[in-house]
């Protein structure tokens, strides 16, 4: 079915994307951007209808990376799904681990020792910094600045990935959290190395910003582009930096008080206009706030166990019931919904993927812009296809 033929039933009464009628000068051009378009960050397709140069209809097409993660998890034990959550958003495996561990801990009422909570916060904030740096690098790449800014971002990301590798044994597929703690303890040497990396981060963000924030091309292409209204963002379930760039103050770290985020001083950066530039700026400022959290957490980490002594490892069978746990992942609200029937495997295992749900309003943001801007607007959403398609 071609994209112009998709008829939306019940056109009124819901928060639908606006209908742009073709001007009638010349024919409509239908363009399939993807699944191998270099801008799509993986295998993703946008079916676009173009009137002249303007996009008048856009439908995202998913599923090229679908492997039914949820069904596989229903056939595996609770712990066996932990390494598989790494593959959801493969830039941020540690926050995926945490979200899943948090949901299971809610399901069984598991406590987490203090040291493990500190390690989780440290790793999650390092993950957030490297994710935001890389996503900004990719955004600039899509503007045509081939390579250089991306390599600046990757240079810093590399240092953080080295920390992950020395702690968990893997750069990206960390498989680190457990129900009731963490897998291995951090050493004093690792904490020293992490402190050194964190000490160098403010300088990196300054340099990155000096390179980009007032760059004329970036400002010309990002300001006033892809505007998202706060009412629509909330109604469409948009979360994370995308939501905060519209000016909605909603950070799950502040709202849910999960982990030990209450103990650290940090602010929630908010945007004003909801355009691409605000999303860029919110990510830069979130990196600065994450550095603040790390500077508070690294020196004050207490000694103690990293696994709760009462944590059940063998014969893990939660009592029947259900739980929904969510965290503020770098891309938005990452949640896991689990139903237990008392068996060793979850009866129902559902991932709430921020990348997929943040794409709900892609059409609304792109309408009226031209193809080169669609690439940029799509890049500013910051998605990973492993999580979109699951």
């Amino acid at each position, binding site marked *: *079915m071609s994209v112009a033929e*998709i008829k*939306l*039933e*019940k*056109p009124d*009464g*819901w*928060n*639908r994307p606006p209908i742009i009628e073709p001007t009638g000068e010349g024919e409509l051009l239908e363009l399939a951007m993807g699944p191998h378009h270099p801008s799509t960050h993986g295998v993703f397709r946008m079916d676009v209808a173009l009137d002249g140069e303007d996009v008048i209809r856009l439908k995202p097409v*998913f*599923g090229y990376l*679908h492997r*039914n993660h*949820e*069904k596989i998890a229903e056939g595996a034990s609770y712990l066996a799904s932990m390494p598989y959550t790494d593959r959801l958003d493969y830039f941020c495996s540690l926050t995926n681990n945490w979200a899943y561990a948090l949901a299971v801990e*809610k*399901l*069984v*009422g598991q406590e987490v020792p203090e040291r493990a909570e500190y390690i989780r916060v440290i790793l999650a904030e390092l993950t957030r910094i490297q994710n935001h740096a890389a996503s900004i690098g990719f955004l600039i790449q899509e503007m045509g600045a081939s390579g250089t800014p991306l390599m600046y971002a990757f240079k810093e990301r590399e240092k953080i990935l080295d920390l992950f590798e020395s702690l968990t044994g893997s750069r990206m597929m960390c498989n680190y959290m457990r129900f009731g703690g963490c897998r291995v303890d951090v050493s004093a040497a690792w904490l020293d190395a992490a402190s050194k990396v964190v000490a160098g981060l403010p300088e990196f963000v300054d340099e990155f910003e000096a390179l980009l924030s007032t760059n004329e091309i970036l400002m010309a292409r990002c300001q006033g582009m892809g505007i998202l209204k706060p009412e*629509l963002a*909330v*109604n*469409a*379930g*948009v979360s994370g930096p995308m939501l905060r760039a519209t000016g*909605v103050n*909603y950070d799950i770290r502040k*709202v849910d008080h999960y982990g030990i985020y209450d103990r650290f001083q940090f602010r929630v950066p908010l945007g004003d206009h909801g355009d691409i530039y605000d999303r860029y700026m919110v990510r830069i400022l979130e990196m600065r706030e994450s550095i603040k959290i790390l500077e508070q957490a690294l020196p004050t980490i207490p000694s103690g166990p990293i696994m709760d002594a009462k944590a059940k490892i063998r014969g893990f069978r*939660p*009592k*029947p*019931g*259900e*739980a*929904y746990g*969510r965290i503020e992942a770098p891309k938005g*609200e990452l*949640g896991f*919904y689990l*139903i*237990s029937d008392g068996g060793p495997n979850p009866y*129902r295992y*559902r991932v*709430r993927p921020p990348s*997929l*749900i943040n*794409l*709900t*309003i892609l059409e609304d943001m792109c309408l009226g812009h031209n193809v080169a801007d669609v690439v940029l607007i799509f890049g500013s959403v910051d998605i990973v296809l492993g999580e979109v*398609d*699951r």
Partner: protein
Amino acid sequence: MEEIKAAIEAAVPGAQVEFVPNPSVSAQHSLRLSPESAVAVATFLRDDSELAFDFLSNVSGVDWPDKEIAEKVKVTRQVVKTVDGPEGKVDQTVDETVEETRKRVEPGLLEAVYHLYSVAKKHGPLVIRMRTTNRSDKTQLPSLTPVWRAAEFQEREVFDLYGIIFTAHPDLRRILMWPEFKDHPMRKDYIDPDDFEYEPTPHDEVLKRAQAHRAAAQGTPPVEEGAAGA
């Protein structure tokens, strides 16, 4: 939770809301809505100034297949027994209690679960759920996409993987599987197709299934197992 239920019943006339307790320690109890009044209740939950559940976080489908329940029931019945009496053998009617196993089938159904939060009031989650009549021909539920746009892709996914038909959904197409796909893979009784390529070099059971499939496609008898490696 009880207050929310009372508020719904006061605001939406004729709304049927059932409290569903959650036995787990998470204590995230839920409210089951009847499909007829679900859209009205959802609109009330979103627009009420006290509740203000403006953020639909998560939509998930759950499959509850037909369940065969075996129950042991004690049945008392009258049995005629021959008893030795003073005047020889006499037939007597005696009450006897027997344990009987009875099987009954609890019909299956599909369920859609919605997790709501409030961005304005910063509270949540509120879990609401709806049930279909059965799993085969009456799987319609009202779509909540007109109330929360966040449900647009997620309800498409539930339709794709579970087969719940959301009436009044503006764009109900498959989202993760391809349009020609027939089944609903997240259902508990879904059977993998036998040409499913999860073995790079098929062996044992997978080889047998693959051969049977190939033979059926080509009309030739399946190859013997020993000869397959040659």
